[in-house]
């Protein structure tokens, strides 16, 4: 039986944050119910198609915790009924401060979720307001303590830096405050202003000044310094964890292993091709209601696709790519394909090769786009 990760998308939010370009909407209860019914049906359809063994589950959004505790539990129950589920599986849910209380957290815990990823973003109230979050720093802290109280022992924080008008000191405070709470894992992203977001409009009107490359760099360096000094190990470009707390689900992505997905706009890689579901709720629900998987687009991958994706994803991991695994997967040495690039970047000290692994150096991480672009084959 083939093993897969599973991503479940909940496209609902209380309100949209100013930087967000993910598939999410504010929605009425009736629409949520229709969506949940569709999800349940999609699980069935997916089980019929792939008969998969699921080795990790990630419920993301949107704001999955906008759902009631029992609604979340129902989704997972359906998964347990329909899929083979690996023992000791990691099940993560994204939780936004301001949408959980003790009761909901308990229900979530009971449903089998064993990892929480809190969308904290910042511990500065000023920054939180500026980016359109609905919660305060204190609420986030309180929610975190509640989660510990109900027994979650694997908690991650999402934090964003390089926010408009954010100072290095502000970011440092957020990092230190985060460390004080001792989450097991941290994901830190710099703000990327995407088309179609309120920030993008502000940018084009000149109302928002993007963070300079210099400050962005300082913030990233600081992130690594602070978190490493507090006992977190960087294992991916944006991810840090205490020992043994690397996210299993995200590593499926980086290792270019297959994952299935449920929900509107969700992307998947079934080991043969990549695809995604309809993002519009109506189309998504209708397709399922008519008994069809709601796939809007699916393309088989060529060998070249697979090669370049393995490089582009694998090099995001700090430990990099195993040369042996590469050879096992493609039947060719990595040098047969990328000799020129590897030589060039080694000379520039952007990548290193130690024992069995090819990895980016810190310098290489800072300029990762420049390096990864050259591993594209077409």
């Amino acid at each position, binding site marked *: 039986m083939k093993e897969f990760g599973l991503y479940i998308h909940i496209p609902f939010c209380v309100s949209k944050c100013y930087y967000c370009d993910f598939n999410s909407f504010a929605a009425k209860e009736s629409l949520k119910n229709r969506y949940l019914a569709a999800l349940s049906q999609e699980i069935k359809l997916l089980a019929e198609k792939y008969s998969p063994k699921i080795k990790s589950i990630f419920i993301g959004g949107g704001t999955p915790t906008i759902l009631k505790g029992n609604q979340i539990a129902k989704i997972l129950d359906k998964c347990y009924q329909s899929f083979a589920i690996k023992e000791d599986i990691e099940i993560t849910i994204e939780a936004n401060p301001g949408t959980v209380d003790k009761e909901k957290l308990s229900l979530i815990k009971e449903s089998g979720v064993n990892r929480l990823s809190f969308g904290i973003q910042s511990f500065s109230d000023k920054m939180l307001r500026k980016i359109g979050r609905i919660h305060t720093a204190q609420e986030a802290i309180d929610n975190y303590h509640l989660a510990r109280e109900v027994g979650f022992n694997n908690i991650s924080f999402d934090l964003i830096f390089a926010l408009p008008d954010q100072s290095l000191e502000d970011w440092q405070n957020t990092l230190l405050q985060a460390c004080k709470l001792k989450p097991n894992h941290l994901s830190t*992203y710099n703000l990327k202003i995407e088309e179609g977001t309120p920030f993008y409009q502000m940018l084009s009107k000149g109302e928002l000044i993007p963070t300079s490359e210099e400050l962005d760099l300082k913030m990233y360096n600081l992130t690594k310094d602070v978190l490493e000094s507090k006992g977190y190990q960087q294992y991916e470009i944006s991810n840090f964890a205490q020992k043994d707390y690397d996210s299993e689900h995200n590593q499926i992505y980086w290792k270019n292993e297959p994952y299935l997905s449920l929900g509107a706009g969700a*992307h998947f890689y079934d080991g043969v091709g990549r695809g995604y579901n309809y993002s519009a709720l109506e189309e998504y629900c209708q397709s399922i209601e008519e008994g069809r998987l709601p796939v809007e687009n699916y393309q088989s991958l060529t060998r070249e696709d697979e090669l370049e994706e393995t490089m*582009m994803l694998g090099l995001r991991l700090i430990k990099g790519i195993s040369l042996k695994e590469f050879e096992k997967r493609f039947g060719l040495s990595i040098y047969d394909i990328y000799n020129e690039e590897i030589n060039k970047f080694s000379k520039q000290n952007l990548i290193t090769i130690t024992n069995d692994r090819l990895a980016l150096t810190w310098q290489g991480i800072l*300029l990762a*786009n420049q390096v990864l672009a050259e591993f594209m084959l077409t």
Partner: protein
Amino acid sequence: MAKINQNNIRNFCIIAHIDHGKSTLADRLLEFTGTISEREMEEQLLDTMDLERERGITIKAQAVRMAYQAKDGNDYTLNLIDTPGHVDFSYEVSRSLAACEGALLVIDAAQGVEAQTLANIYIALENDLEIIPVINKIDLPSANPDRVKEELIDIGLDPDDAILTSAKEGIGIEELLERVVKQVPPPSGDKDKPLKALIFDSLYDPYRGVICYYRVIDGTIKKGMKVKMMATKKIFEVDEVGTFRPKMKASKEISAGEVGYMAASIKNVKNAQVGDTITDAENPTDKPLSGYQPAKPMVFCGMYPVDGKDYDVLRDALEKLQLNDASLTFEPETSEALGFGYRCGFLGLLHMEIMQERLEREYRLDLITTAPSVIYNVYKTDGEVLQIENPANMPDAQEIDKIEEPVVEAKILLPDEHVGAAMELCQGKRGQFKNMEYLDEVRVRLTYDIPLSEIVLDFFDKLKSRTRGYATFDYEFNGYQEADLVKLNILVNEEPVDALSCIVHRDFAYDVGKELTKKLKEFIPQQMFKVPIQAAIGHKIVARQTISARRKDVLQKCYGGDVSRKKKLLKKQKEGKKRMKQVGSVEIPQDAFMAVLEIGD
């Protein structure tokens, strides 16, 4: 096919300001006369190149023959010759007009008479053409034909002569054809004299060799006869003659007054150049038609494939294009920065751009084109005289006695309110004022001597923008003049990049250096290290800019499982890099080599 009576032939062209509706009007004439059915119609039918349709310009001359039964009951043969419309091709235009007896002067009913309209009238009058004013686009809400009629009086034309049309709506087309029949004189010329025909265009067909477009002045041309090109003195046997309907259609013979084509297994357009006279090799006419000028490139640039492996492809492509374009020249050259390429010669800047675009499109070449240059006469201290068309080959200053540069006499026609702006531009381009005359109350002709090197650097575009499009401009080569010129070297990351060097007047060298380094800083993306850009005369640095190092370029956001989105970003980045040339350790984008064109705006 019935024999055509010379009295029932009308040869005419359409002259118009760009956008005044020339091509649409031609389309309607073809439709109305049934030359082409509506079903076959595509827009701008006579502009056959994609490039012409896209840019809305005509590059090659075209001809089409229409049959028209006029209201007087007679059948007429109407030959419409479509002409190119840019100063680079002014010689080709003059030859096309010389093949006609009449011209439709098309004026936009909303825009009115514009500067170029006036220039066109002069060209038409110079060729003794009967002018029929056509006020087009009368369907526009902003159309004001009465105002245009008043303007016609101002420029010496009879407003009652004007025909009101809307090519878009098909209004006035029949009246127009009637007027062509009545007003344009039939061709004179004697069918029984020895053959004399004017080539107004030629193009290369891979199967039949060069196809000449001509107008027969005297005599008859037919299949099997031996013809002689009077300028090149080459003799060919005619394989086929015919007319344009609008596709080429073979016929037995083409006689005095008619417009047609000829195929004669001519291998290269150089042997059948625009303006040359075709005559009967066995019974030649005594004198060729006047006005022939051999095609001569005025502007030169280096063309290099981004990927060195494409060098042979580039050579083949240039050879093919040259078959069709007598004015294109090329010879191999080597650049330290760009590797192996060709130094190519063109009629002007637009011609150069068109060729570059055709090479990139039709032959899928990625090219780096260096800034345009002209031929300098360099007198060395040891007595040697060099002709330098590539700034990189300029000898060291201490070896040079003097340098001469080509100068053109530029004539600018414009309304008097823009004279100040135009004079300022000419002065800034080292122009020497020669004359200013009022052609009427508001229209002025400025005459300047300007170094050609200044003209090729975008003079026309700058003139147009400073005169809000009202100025027209024409120039003629006017000999060589000594000038105090120096070579400006550009160093990128401490290394001289030969392909970026340029020749400038000493008085301007400092400013050009300053502006050019500034522009280059905009064009060259940040590298992983700091890159100084310097301008130097000899060893003396006159300007410097520094591009700071790229220090962080990493996509941190996770995008869920959406791998394709990340990949797209990386592919785009790689695509951008592909179009850059690695010079030393620095990646320089293609357009940076043309940066000198952008200074001084």
